[in-house]
């Protein structure tokens, strides 16, 4: 199996490595989003695996218990967890990094109350907040300490976990640089990033270390908006002769751009890192967020920006008019893929719109 095929296989069967670890007698702690300190899970001796939404899966439980305006990712996770499909995990840590994840947590607790015989893992809320205030930082530090106490692990193991996870971030940054240099496709980047969250670290390093150079399409796009649970948009761009060379969405490139401070007390460093340096929908203020994605835009030399908003977006639409104006002032084309259905998007319309955008980009 080629390194890329190995990464893609891990994405296609994201619990396989966790099941192998479990079979070998290791506890498994699953987590949602990108705001849970994976370092704490690993320091506690558990196998860490990220659960993500899957638009290909049916959601009968959500249809019964959740209102229709929940995001597709949240509905998918509700069904996956509530149905017992993630029972390889001994514990699932849910960060309060979006309202959707918080309501998912409460809705799953309510599901357990309504159907006590339904078996799914214990849930733990990590109440991480993303405003840049000092008092908020102290609160997040307290919640991080509480999570560490729950997961266990010595200070020495925690330092090691921080170093190892920083190494992983560094490897991802190197891949991102290759993408910007035109030698890695956006879809491969997506697979490598997702696989880093489901594979055992050494298996991931082994695969990524032998990943060959690619000749990516020359037209350069930035993708911005909601999180991407599949590489579909990246692949669509590639099929139309363009490469997504930069992205700005929760769980994307910006979530691995900053290393955790290894010289500091690890809990203090982790708390600050997940409060301030892993962007979420709740990161604030907006001027700081805009500066961050514009820096990525400049660095990547992207020629156009694709905004991707899901069907029931109540958040990113507030930012869009000003962001659109910023791009217009720079003379950069942009496309809004708005009201996108999570499970059944209008793929023909999406393809046509993206194709038109790419045609507008000067050769």
């Amino acid at each position, binding site marked *: 199996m080629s390194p890329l095929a190995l990464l893609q296989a891990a994405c296609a069967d994201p619990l396989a490595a966790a099941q192998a670890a479990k079979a070998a007698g290791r506890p498994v702690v699953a987590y949602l989003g990108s705001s849970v300190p994976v370092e704490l899970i690993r320091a506690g001796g558990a196998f860490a695996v990220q659960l993500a939404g899957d638009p290909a899966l049916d959601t009968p439980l959500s249809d*019964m*218990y*959740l*209102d229709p*305006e*929940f995001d597709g990712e949240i509905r998918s996770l509700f069904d996956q967890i509530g149905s017992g499909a993630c029972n390889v995990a001994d514990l699932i840590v849910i960060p*309060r990094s*979006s*309202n959707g994840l*918080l*309501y998912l947590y*409460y*809705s799953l*607790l*309510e599901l357990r*109350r*309504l159907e006590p015989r339904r078996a799914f893992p214990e849930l*733990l*809320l990590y*109440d991480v*907040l993303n*405003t840049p*205030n000092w*008092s*908020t930082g*102290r*609160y997040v530090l*307290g*919640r991080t300490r*509480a999570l560490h106490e729950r997961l266990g692990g010595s200070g020495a193991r925690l330092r090691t976990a921080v170093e190892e996870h920083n190494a992983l971030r560094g490897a991802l940054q190197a891949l991102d640089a290759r993408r910007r240099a035109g030698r890695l496709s956006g879809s491969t980047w997506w697979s490598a990033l997702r696989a880093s969250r489901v594979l055992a670290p050494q298996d991931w390093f082994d695969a990524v270390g032998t990943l060959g150079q690619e000749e990516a399409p020359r037209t350069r796009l930035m993708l911005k908006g909601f999180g991407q649970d599949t590489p579909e948009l990246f692949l669509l761009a590639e099929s139309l002769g363009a490469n997504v060379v930069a992205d700005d969405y929760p769980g994307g490139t910006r979530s691995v751009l900053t290393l955790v401070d290894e010289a500091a007390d690890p809990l203090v460093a982790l708390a600050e890192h997940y409060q301030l340096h892993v962007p979420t*929908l*709740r990161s*604030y*203020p*907006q001027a700081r967020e805009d500066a961050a994605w514009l820096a990525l835009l400049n660095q990547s030399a992207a020629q156009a920006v694709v905004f991707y*908003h899901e*069907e*029931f*977006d*109540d*958040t990113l*639409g*507030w*930012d*869009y*008019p000003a962001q*659109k104006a910023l791009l217009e002032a720079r003379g950069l084309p942009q496309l809004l893929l*708005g*009201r996108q259905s999570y499970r059944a998007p209008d793929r023909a319309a999406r393809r046509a719109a993206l194709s038109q955008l790419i045609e507008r980009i000067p050769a």
Partner: protein
Amino acid sequence: MNRPAQARLASTLAANAHQKEEFQAFRRRVLEEGEPYVIADAVAPHEVLHAMDIHVTPVVWYSAIIAAKQLSPYYFEQMDARGFHDRLPRYTSLPLMSTLDADPERAPYGGLPKPMMIVSRFRDDYGQRISELWSQAYGGVPVFGLDASSSATLGPRWWERGLRDWETVYETHRLDFQVEQLEGLIRTAETLSGRSFRQLEFVRQMHRINRAGELVAEIRDLIAAARPLPVPLTEQLANVMAPTWDRGSAWSVSHLEAFRDEIKGLIAAGAAACPNEKLRLLWVGNGLWFNTAFYRAFEEKYGAVFVWSMYSNFLSDGYRRYFDDEPGQALRALASRHISMNEQLHVPPWMADWIVEQARAYGADGAVMLVPTNDRMGSFGSRLTKVALERAGIPVVELHANMVDARMWDDAAMTRTVEQFIEQRLKR
């Protein structure tokens, strides 16, 4: 023999007049005398500012006023024209649109002048964005953001345990953080206004809020036990919401005493909101602010009367906090008031358990549930609450509409939906 209740209670007229006079007087003081005032979320600690004699305009109060004056279609068209897509939240953004429109002749009561600051509690993912846009619309005013911590567990019967055992219910680490934020808000308000936070006045107001809550509890028990319902839901809303926004004032207590006495008199006189009362309904979810007449649309044909909405007694169950004389306890009690309001009103099991309790107390036969479209913070708990109510034997019908966007309301279709519900699931 039941007598029809008079069209408007004396208390209602007094409440409406008080609100209008207060707003106009405050606006005059702001414009003519440069007095500071604050725009704040409903779930923000207005008490801190009231204790400094700083006027607070609650965002959703003004939103409801705009909707009631049938101005929401105009402002939402402005919102569309500015490139904000039409699924963005309406309830908390409507007042921002009135500011962006910058036409005091059109805006209710002349619109909102430039505030000293905007206080926003970051419970959802978008409130901070609305606050920042609003600040920019005023040319830049400070936004004081209150972070929203979350409970790990939502235990049983918050409306009873939270009155006194709030330290346990709302969790010590969350209260520590919220007190710290309140202290920051006090210092910020003092710096910006040049006024001092008056501790003694604050404690007095906190006690008055408890007294107001006790009166609302008494009123709730009177109304819940009375057969038939003595006053329509619309009258309940007017008389409880005005003291809620003006909580802590001497007026709020004296008004609720007058309202209670008027209710007692009506019950003694056999007054009926609907003399033909046959079915008792709950209104679950936010108010239908542009069409409160809908609450009475099923009385004549079916004898179906709305007896309760979440505003009926939230001032009693959600606001009361008893505290001792230890230094700092009043502020800590205040900290516990707002940090879980969203969970109480919109998140099961707290939302569901409380509403089932009200259904039983009021002898409800069914519930009409407003599931907000394009305001999903208010809809996320609806389906699970419906399941809980149905399991408790209370049939539920969902109305998918927005609480302030009249453009999305199809009166004939909504009426038909409720009529079918009554005929097929409730009629005995």
